């Protein structure tokens, strides 16, 4: 990190204190900017915050909303938990998955049990969710 000013990760977290408490907010910055957590970005973050890379990965991999692959579009998370299941979430998941493939993930309860079934498209919530509603949101939303 000889020339830190050109490090894209450094500019992303410029305003955050260089402490371990900035790790979770910093991970969100990376995800919002890059749509995913890249290995080299995690290593850069480790050096910037002074947290061992293994521990950065340990934290990053704990959370369900962070993806570690390389999505080209916003990931789609469909709640298939108890209440959404009563309201056709399994069929919704199968339908959307048939179109959008690997971008679609099953999610635990999203806290929208009053308007089931629920889905999270990138950072946007759709509830009740239909295949059309999810498609519209995926097209509208940029990469996170």
């Amino acid at each position, binding site marked *: 990190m000889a020339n830190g000013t050109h490090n894209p990760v450094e500019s992303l977290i410029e305003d955050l204190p260089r402490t371990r408490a*900035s790790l979770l907010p910093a991970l969100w910055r990376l995800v919002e900017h890059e749509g995913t957590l890249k290995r080299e970005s995690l290593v850069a973050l480790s050096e910037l915050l002074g947290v061992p890379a293994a521990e950065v990965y340990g*934290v990053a991999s704990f959370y369900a909303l962070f993806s570690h692959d390389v999505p080209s579009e916003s990931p789609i998370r469909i709640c298939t938990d108890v209440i959404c299941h009563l309201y056709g979430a399994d069929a919704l998941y199968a339908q959307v998955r048939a179109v959008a493939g690997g971008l679609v993930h099953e999610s635990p309860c999203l806290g929208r049990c009053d308007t089931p079934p629920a889905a999270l498209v990138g950072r946007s919530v759709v509830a009740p969710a239909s295949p059309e509603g999810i498609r519209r949101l995926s097209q509208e939303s940029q990469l996170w």
Partner: protein
Amino acid sequence: MVRRLLPDNESVLPLLSEERWRARGYDRALAQAAALGPDGVIEWVTAAHITGRGGAAFPTGKKWASVARTTDPIKYVVMNADESELGTFKDRVLLSGDPWGPLTGLAIAAYAVGARDAFLYVRGEYPEIEALLKDAFGWTRWAGPLADRLTFHLYRGGGAYIAGEETALINSIEGKRPEPRVKPPFPTQRGLWDHPTVIQNVETLANVALVLAHDPEWYRAVGTPSAPGTKLIAVSGHVRRPGVYEVPMGFPLWPVLMDPDYGGGIGGSGRLQAVLIGGAAGTWLTADECREARLDNESLRAYGASLGSGAMMVFDDTVNIWRILGQVARFFAHESCGQCVPCRIGTQRLVEQLTGDRQPDYQQLRELGEAMRDASICGLGQTAPQALLSYLDRPALWR
């Protein structure tokens, strides 16, 4: 209908306006707190008998007193808005209807215990709530010294049910894996960065704001002697009107399902089979039990149940409850942090037993559930078998 936490008459005023903050009485609450002084505030909160609304029902005044007592000059307060319990969405509805209540309560908590930094931890799946709270921070310009003296730190969760457990939440803010710590020491002694910390659920803080906006006597005028005030109940599943309803503590359960002002009647087939009360870690109540039960922890104890976070998931007679138990087991196996053996292995064994083809051995299941309940580090593992154990106690639900 009692409406204290959920506003109605002021709802024409813009959500984040100063006028609305005043109309809700929160200017009065902060002025009252300043007049009482820190010790006086804790006396009022103690006299009001507010208990934690996140599920544990711990007396709030007692928690604050133990933090205020410590000699450590650095103390913290945290609003826990990481509700991720299955079927629970009351904090989202409360914050989107009245963000000022919980925020005012947080400022009062900070003043009472002597904290200068206030943390808000919002679940990552609630982007609109996070945006709302960020906009609300502008209140420090006009809400007076109790708000102005504070530095607010907003944290967005990364999607982990266990991060809502108070010590896991502390680890999450500190940039560690959100794994629960062994208690004691409790966060009141060693919380954020080992300093004494008050962590409160959103709804608890809204209750604090109400007590200070009125007085303990006003607050205790509804509810039961042991549990004064109101409770937000999140009703979902097979009801005609799913949603969050505010009821006095001790209110009968049945009208919350049936009354047109509340759940509006059973949906689906129209015939009630059972209610899972308290969330995924909740207790099954049969239709007959639902007719008699009242919504407060003291009365629910007769059914081996508690209010928990206030979730009521309603199921009609076409639902296979064994399958629901399988889904609940999968939820906990997915959300277990894996730190302690009873929970890590126990949640997996439950999934195998509940979703497999083999005929389950009820006695073995009960022993497994009891071992998890007794030996897990935190509430997740301790309560993961709760719904199953309550099912085993109710042959009426076996089919």
